[in-house]
Structures are given as C-alpha cells and as structure tokens.
C-alpha cells in the first residue's frame, strides 16, 4: 500500500514536470515565432480582401497552365522513377541483413540519412544555380531526398522480413543475390510498391512548389501572379494545384490499399483497376514525352555542381551566431505550427471519424475541410498568409499549422475509427455519457498513436520551416536563398551545416521518442 502511494506520487510529479517542460517549450516557441494574436486580428481584413480578390478565379491562359501542370507531374514522376532505381541497391546495402559487411552498411546508412535530411527545395536551389532554371533542376532537387527517403523505407522493410523463407532458400544451397531475389524480394514487394506510390504522391506535391525557386512547374507561375497582385489568376492556379493533388492522393491511396491487402487486380474491381492502371501509364508516358530528361544537360551541369561545392569551402563561420539564432526561430516556428495544428486537428479528427460522428453531413464536411488543408502545399498557404499578415515567421507558422492540421486530422480520425470497439461498448454499458466514453475508452487507446503522429509531424514541420523563408515567411530559409543569390557559397555552407545538423538531430530525437510512446 505504502509503495503504491509513493509510486503514484512519483508518477504525479513526473507528469507535472513533463507538462511544465511542455508549456515552457510552447511559450518559448511562440515567442521565437513572433506569434501575436493582434497581428492576426489586424491581418484579418487583409486576408478577407485577398479572398475577395481571388474570386472568381480567372483561368486566363488555360493551355499554358495545363502544360505547366503536366510538367509538374512529369517532374514528380521522373524523380520517383530514377529515385526507385537508385534506392533499391542503396536500400539493400543499408539494411543489416542484406548488407555485405559492416563498413558498407554504416556508409550506406550515413549516405541515406544525409540525403534524407536535405530539404527538397534547398536541393533544388543548389541545382538551379548549377543547371539554370527549369525542370531538370527540379527533378534533381526532388531526387536526392527521394532516394534518401525510399532507401530508408526499403532498408526498414528488408530488416523486418520473416527469416523463415531466407533460411529455406539458403538451406537449398543458394547464396547472395539469389537469396535476395527468391526470399527477400517476394516478401518486400508489396511494401516497396506502397512506398513507391507514397513517394510519387509526395514528389508530385513537392513539385508544385519547386517553381518558387525557379526549378520548373506550376509554382513559378503562381509566384509570379501573386507577386504582381493578380490574385484572381493566382487562385485559378491554386484550384488546379488542389485538383491535381486531390486526384493523385485518392489514386495513390486506392492503389496502396489494393496492393497491401492483395485485392488489386484480382478482385471484382478488375476492370476498374486495369483502366486505372492504363490511365496511370498514359499519364506517365505523356509526361515523359513532355519533359524528356536530357542526359547531356545533366552531364553538362556536373562541373558546375563541383564549382558550387568547392565554392563552399572553407565554410564561413563568422555569422554563425546570427545564423543559429535564425535556426532557433525556425525550430520555434516548427514547434508552434505543430502545436496549433494539434489544436485544430483534435476537433477535425473527432468530427471526421465515422465511429463517433453520427451525422453524415458534419462527417463529410469536416472530411473535406481536412482534405483541403492536406492538399494545399504549405508554401502556397504561406504565400497567401504573407499577403495577409505580412512577411515574417507568423505567416509561416499559420501555413504550417493549417497544412499539417489536415494531416493530423486525417491521422487522428483513422486512429479513432480503428480503436477496439469492445471496451467502448463496455464503457457505454456502464451508463457513461458520450464525452466520458471518448475520454475513458477511446482516448487511452489512441493517445500513444496521437503522440507518435504529433512527433512525426513535428519532425516534418521543423524540416519544412527551414523553407518558409523562400517566400518570406520567416526562418533561416531567407538567409539561405540570399546567400546563394549573392554567390556567398561559404556562408551557404555554414547555413547548410546548421540546417542539416538540426534536421538530423530532430529526426533522431523524434524517432527515439516515437518508439518510447508506442511501447
């Protein structure tokens, strides 16, 4: 009994401490990100005026916009296809169980983590400086982080395979590549396909914003129209961006579900699946035709990458303190954005979970709002918020918050829909009221998942906030763009070191904590 009481108290003290730390971090981040309710209030009339200016959307040069849209999709496709080709060997050597030896494994793993940590727009910026503006820089910009991400997913999938079949094939006298071909690949294939589709989805989304740094696609045109205050034209582009992303998102999640539960191409929806697949191939073919990647162009750019890289040495550490302060602001933006996203996502998630929202009307409306937030790239939100509340981190925080509230809302809703219904019924049977049931039967089941999603989004938002500066929405990104525009590559190097170190640290901390909370 006595030990029970102390255990309870220690737990209580620990909880109180954790909450205190949490509050301090949030308060600090809000201050760093210059969050101010007055700015928001003052900005509201501007935002309203902006929205008024956006309507009705003016589809001024539809042909040109559609061509740019096709180019954008093509960039995403190319980056994914080339990315897959590079990621398979890289994934194999950076998985413990298929790597030839420990040195290759460590090297592969370092390479993967390094590539993954570079934000895609930063990468695209670098390639724009060496290849000039245009889609090739965009493709290469997407490619590096895509290889890192895919190779990491692949390696994790390979590491988690069932060793039974591997043993069996090895027992039959096979070795090396033959084991990989016959025992490893069949097991990981559906997972790989799922990751590839996810990557494609992600790359097409990301390609929409590459134009902001001049790396081709729709983003550039959008940026141009926003800058020249042609908001009704900008809104037309936004509509198209939104439509494309929504369609791709639905298509990719349909295919992913079909592939993971094995119903794709061999169930009743066969005809539908085949036609979807052919449409998909048609789009692929068309975009490859539209944006042919010229090897010669890439080869011609390589010496310039070398110039760029050698220009970075030695890094110029003199402005390191101001840079670190900027990074702190960036991290603050990521944390504040995530926190506000959580606040928005809780009602969104609950209202769009079928199992607890009985009204189909409310359920559908919230689901569409969630989808809208998710489909709108954060940099586009940022462009709008910069126009509404002015330059600075606040616009960036709002953009991150809205965009990722869409993700979290969806994740939360799925978690709620997947809870074990048995304890929920049991709690209802005790005569508990609706809110009590949510708190005592649903919340304990979803809270570890929620924490895990929040940490994942936090990681992602800190990464994304390094880019907000590109559109003037605060953080270290602005300095990065400026240093490149001014050919001050030695300063660029310092900024990159700070960004990559922070991103990798946050990534590590987030996955460490995620493993802890899910246990």
């Amino acid at each position, binding site marked *: 009994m006595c030990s029970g009481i102390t255990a309870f108290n220690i737990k209580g003290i620990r909880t109180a401490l954790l909450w205190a730390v949490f509050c301090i971090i949030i308060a600090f981040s809000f201050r760093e990100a210059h969050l101010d309710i007055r700015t928001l209030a003052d900005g509201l009339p501007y935002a309203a005026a902006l929205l008024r200016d956006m309507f009705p959307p003016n589809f001024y040069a539809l042909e040109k916009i559609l061509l740019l849209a096709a180019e954008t999709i093509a960039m995403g496709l190319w980056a994914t296809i080339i990315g897959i080709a590079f990621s398979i060997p890289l994934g194999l050597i950076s998985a413990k169980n298929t790597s030839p030896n420990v040195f290759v494994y460590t090297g592969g793993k370092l390479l993967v983590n390094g590539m993954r940590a570079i934000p895609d727009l930063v990468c695209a910026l670098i390639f724009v400086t060496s290849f000039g503006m245009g889609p090739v820089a965009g493709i290469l910009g997407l490619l590096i982080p895509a290889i890192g991400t895919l190779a990491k997913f692949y390696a994790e999938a390979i590491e988690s395979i069932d060793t039974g079949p591997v043993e069996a094939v090895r027992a039959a006298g096979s070795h090396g590549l033959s084991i990989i071909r016959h025992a490893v690949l069949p097991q990981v294939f559906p997972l790989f396909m799922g990751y590839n589709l996810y990557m494609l989805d992600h790359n097409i989304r990301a390609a929409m914003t590459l134009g902001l740094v001049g790396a081709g696609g729709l983003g550039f045109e959008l940026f141009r129209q926003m800058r020249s205050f042609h908001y009704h034209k900008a809104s037309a582009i936004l509509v198209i961006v939104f439509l494309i992303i929504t369609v791709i998102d639905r298509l990719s999640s349909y295919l992913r579900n079909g592939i993971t539960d094995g119903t794709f191409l061999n169930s009743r929806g066969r005809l539908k699946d085949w036609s979807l697949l052919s449409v998909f191939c048609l789009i692929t073919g068309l975009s490859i035709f539209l944006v042919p990647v010229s090897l010669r162009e890439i080869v011609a750019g390589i010496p310039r990458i070398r110039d760029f890289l050698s220009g970075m040495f030695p890094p110029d550490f003199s402005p390191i303190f101001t840079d670190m302060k900027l990074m702190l602001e960036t991290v603050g933006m990521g944390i504040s954005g995530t926190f506000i996203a959580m606040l928005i996502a809780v009602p969104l998630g609950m209202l769009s979970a079928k199992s607890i929202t009985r009204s189909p009307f409310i359920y559908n409306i919230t689901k569409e709002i969630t989808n809208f937030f998710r489909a709108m790239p954060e940099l586009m939100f940022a462009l709008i918020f910069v126009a509404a509340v002015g330059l600075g981190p606040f616009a960036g925080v709002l953009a991150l918050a809205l965009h990722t509230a869409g993700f979290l809302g969806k994740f939360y809703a799925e978690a709620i829909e997947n809870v074990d219904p048995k304890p929920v019924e049991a709690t209802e049977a*005790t005569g*508990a009221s609706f809110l009590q049931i949510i708190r005592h039967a649903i919340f*304990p089941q979803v809270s*570890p998942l929620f924490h895990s999603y929040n940490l994942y989004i936090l990681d992602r938002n800190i990464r994304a906030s390094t880019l907000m500066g590109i559109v003037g929405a605060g953080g270290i990104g602005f300095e990065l763009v400026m240093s490149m525009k001014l050919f001050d590559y030695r300063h660029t190097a310092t900024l990159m070191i700070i960004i990559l170190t922070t991103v990798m640290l946050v990534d590590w901390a987030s996955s460490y904590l995620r493993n802890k909370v899910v246990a």
Partner: protein
Amino acid sequence: MLCVEGINKRFNGRQVLSNLNLRVGSGETVALIGSSGSGKTTLIRTINGFVVPDSGRVAIQGKDIDYRNREALRQTRKRIGMVYQLFNLVERASALDNVMSGALGRMDRGIHLLVSTVGFFQKEDRDKAMDVLRFVGIEDKANERVDRLSGGQKQRVAIARALMQEPELLLADEPVANLDPKTGRKILELFLKINVGKGITVITVLHHIEAVRDHFRRVAAIKDGTVCFDGKVDELTGDHIDYIYKSDRNLECAAA
C-alpha cells in the same frame, strides 16, 4: 426484477428472437444456455439496450426500458453491470483505471461530470475501486496495466468494473469461455459470492453444462430465439439437452 415479455427481433430478415419471455426475480441467479446462434447474446444486449427489439417489452424493477430516449437508456444501463467473454477492458490502462470507469455513469451531474470528462476521479471513487478490487481478489494488481494480466485476472478486473457501478443486475455473456476450467470455476464462484454477499441478481450465458449444474439452481434454455426450457437445474435431463442443442427448427418445445 427483470421482465422480458414477448420480444421479437429480426436481423436482415432473419428472426433471431421470437416472442421471447423471461422473468427473473430479485436476488436470483440464472444460467442461460442454448446452441450457437440461438439468440443468447442478442437477448442480453436487448436487456442492456444495445439491441432494440422490434416488438415486446423489457422492464427492470417494473419500469419499461425506453429504447428511444438516450438519457433514460443511460440511466437504465447504470443499474446493469455487464461482463463479457473477451473482458472488453482498455488494455493499455491500469486495472484501477478500468475499474474506476465503472463509476462514470454515476458521475453524471455538475462538477462530477466535468471532472470525470476531463479525466479525473475523486479519492472516494479511488478507495471504492480498491475495495472492489479487494473483493474480487486482485488488489495487488491495481496499478498494473491490463495487458500484463492473465485472462482470469482480466475477468476479475472486468467484474470489478461492473461492481463499481453498484448494479442491481449483473449480466454476463460467456464469462468463462476464454478461461481454463479451473479459473472458470473460480470466476463462477465469484459470481455466486456477489449474488449472496451483495444481493445482486445474476444472469449469465454459459456453455458448459457441468459448470451450470455445479453453480446454478435455475437454468433457462434458448432455442431458435425463444425460451424452450426454464426451470430447476435438477429437472434438466439429458433429453432436454439433446433437444436444446439439436438444430432442428420444426420440433415442438419439449418442456416447461
């Protein structure tokens, strides 16, 4: 105590309960038997309001259950404890937290409602939960997470949660079907202890006839959605049992 009169229920055009009648007096213990799919679970769920009968009435202490009024239904559920085959506990929460959730129905006014919705309980409820856990014999596991408990311990936690409600009626749907025979016996003994010690009426679905004979005096059998035997366990003959578990819908009801 409980009066079920002429209830009918169809699922997808299939008659699951047909003109079912059952009366249970205060302080009785009744074992419900019947073959798979005969409608036992549906009957239990009708009594605590999770299944709405197409016709007929169910009354607790002389008061009809109003299936359309959510608040009235909640008030009824407060008075009925429920124990499940698969325990239906929040696995990640502690035994104590699970037990305390049995008090939620009572905390339905003012500050209590607010506090419990935010997620807190009062010291009295905590103490009471400890008392109940002691009664079911596992107070030493109070702070253990449920997913670390054995099946028998989980069922004790679930029973404690039901007792936390201070129910007048305790329903159980195959409470020992997922336990080994020895543990199952102990759980059934616990039901009898609850019945005798706390005067709570107990109705439980059971599959094991031997266990029914050893622990219960009254047994009611359901076949094709209606009660086809209701009487003392001693009167239940082998022929009855053959009939109850034979899946022929055309035979007449044998006894009682």
